[in-house]
């Protein structure tokens, strides 16, 4: 049995509207982020992997199971939707409990599991209040709780960090990490790129229904040849360093920091640059630090998709 979420040449069209097209993916365990502007196909991809929509073409397998068998699929898949999807009038407890009953859990098990899950998302005090009276952060947490409640191995979370304050965000991220650390597959869609960068083991970049890149962000960045690599260097003599670096053909641009102790360099060949730096460091220039400046999700997103709707 496969231990991955597999998309094989998957396309989804809603009539004439393109959802996603020719998607080939193999998602390993850990935290995977789906990144892309609105309408890029993130939610469609999530709906496809949870079997909520059927692909117009191609094949999807979640850990070896087809997605058109909800009875088996949802034993190990939990889904938290993007919108405020709460049936009217339910308390936080009832919300989790009713969905566990709907999943086929006997009443006693459902009650016990509901309390465990509510405790896990730190919502015990608010469990008896109506969901309608919850704050945005509490709503996100209770929505995550309903996805987590039956201990799924695959957790699909659509925009789980939207509208959360920093404290709530860090709590949510801790929950994702805890799930990933237990060997779960946590699939997240998000616009908040710096957080995606911090929490993701791998990213899938989508644009207009197509997957434009996938994998670990550094490997994706290294494959983008048309944009020179930006490297930030902190040293005592940046002007001298810049002059020496321009002796190499691969160096395109260098700008000195205002404080006079730093240099932002653009190079076509990062490997040659690092080799050159070894030589220069031996020539007496004291280098404090060298760090890539654009191998994060934000830069890759800007290079591949453009800067629309990016939340920094």
């Amino acid at each position: 049995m496969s231990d991955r979420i597999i998309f094989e040449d998957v396309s989804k069209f809603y009539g004439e509207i393109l959802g996603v097209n020719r998607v080939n993916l193999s998602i390993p365990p850990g935290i995977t982020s789906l990144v892309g502007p609105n309408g890029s196909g993130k939610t469609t991809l999530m709906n496809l992997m949870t079997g909520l929509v059927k692909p117009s073409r191609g094949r999807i397998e979640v850990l070896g199971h087809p997605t058109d068998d909800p009875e088996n699929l949802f034993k190990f898949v939990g889904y938290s939707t993007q919108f405020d999807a709460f049936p009217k009038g339910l308390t936080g407890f009832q919300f989790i409990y009713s969905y566990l009953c709907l999943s086929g859990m006997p009443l006693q098990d459902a009650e016990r599991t509901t309390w465990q899950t509510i405790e896990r998302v730190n919502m015990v005090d608010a469990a008896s209040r109506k969901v309608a009276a919850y704050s945005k952060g509490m709503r996100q947490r209770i929505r995550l709780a309903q996805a987590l409640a039956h201990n799924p191995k695959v957790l699909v979370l659509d925009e789980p960090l939207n509208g959360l304050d920093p404290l709530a965000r860090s709590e949510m991220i801790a929950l994702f990490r805890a799930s990933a650390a237990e060997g779960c597959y946590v699939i997240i869609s998000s616009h908040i790129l710096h957080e995606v960068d911090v929490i993701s083991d791998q990213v899938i970049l989508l644009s207009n229904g197509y997957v434009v890149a996938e994998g670990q962000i550094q490997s994706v960045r290294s494959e983008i040849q048309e944009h020179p690599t930006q490297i930030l260097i902190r040293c005592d003599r940046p002007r001298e360093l810049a002059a020496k670096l321009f002796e190499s053909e691969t160096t395109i641009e260098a700008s000195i920091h205002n404080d006079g102790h730093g240099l932002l360099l653009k190079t076509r060949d990062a490997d040659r640059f690092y080799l050159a730096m070894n030589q220069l460091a031996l020539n007496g220039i004291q280098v404090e630090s060298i760090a890539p400046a654009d191998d994060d999700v934000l830069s890759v997103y800007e290079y591949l998709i453009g800067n629309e709707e990016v939340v920094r």
Partner: protein
Amino acid sequence: MAVYRRNYRPYSGTQTSEWSRFLVLFRYSRRNLFRSKVQTGFFVLCFFYPIACLVMIYLAHSASFLAKLGVPSQLISIDNMFFFRYMSVQGVLAFLMTAFAGPGLISPDLANGALPLYFCRPFSRAEYVLGKSSVLGILLSQITWIPGVILFAIQASFAGASWTWNNLWIAGSLVVASLIWIAILSLLAMALSAWVKWRIVAGALLLALMFFGAGFAQAINAVMHTDSGHFVDVGYLTAAVWIGLFKVEAENSITAFPALIALLVYCSICLLLLMRKVRAYEVIR
């Protein structure tokens, strides 16, 4: 690449049977319904006429009491017409109950985008519709065929085996007539609830469909010099089926069978409309 501790433990307890899961929806929807005092009050009001019928059945079998009152015993006759009248009154009440309770069944789930949450479980669209319609089905049964059959049983206990044997078909007619009415009302209400997100508008539309349907049918008949206009009047069609089922003599230009076919067509259209709307996702064009 991170190294993960594989200490994931899925739920490994028993599962409830698939067929029973729609009852979870029934339980919550019913509880929501009876939160309204008006709804509860109207539900109680629906039992007044059956109680009046019960009194009439008792009186019909108390000749000495009627004699004391000076009422001729033939005045109250418990026959197919009596149960047809019962069905007509309860049918109107069932319609009003549906107009009140039906539109709120699906529209809040659609307005809140709750459908994906239902369907990301081992729970199908058909089970969702079944769960929601069971609320109306059971509620309307409680005010139509269940008291009707109880009244029939009481009448049977008074009238004896011979009457019961000869009129057993009336009990069957009560059940079938009620089920047809419940099916058409439930499906109409839910289809409207699915397509109109505002509960009040959906309720008003259901009322309009019945009343304007009758008016529209009359208009078609007058303009086209035909009786076929009645096919757009759901109330008229149902009455035609009931007249056939209870074997009462009443003027009706459409016979029971074509009326039943027309009602089945309406039910199918409602089901199609429902299935188009009850989905885990919505395509916004």
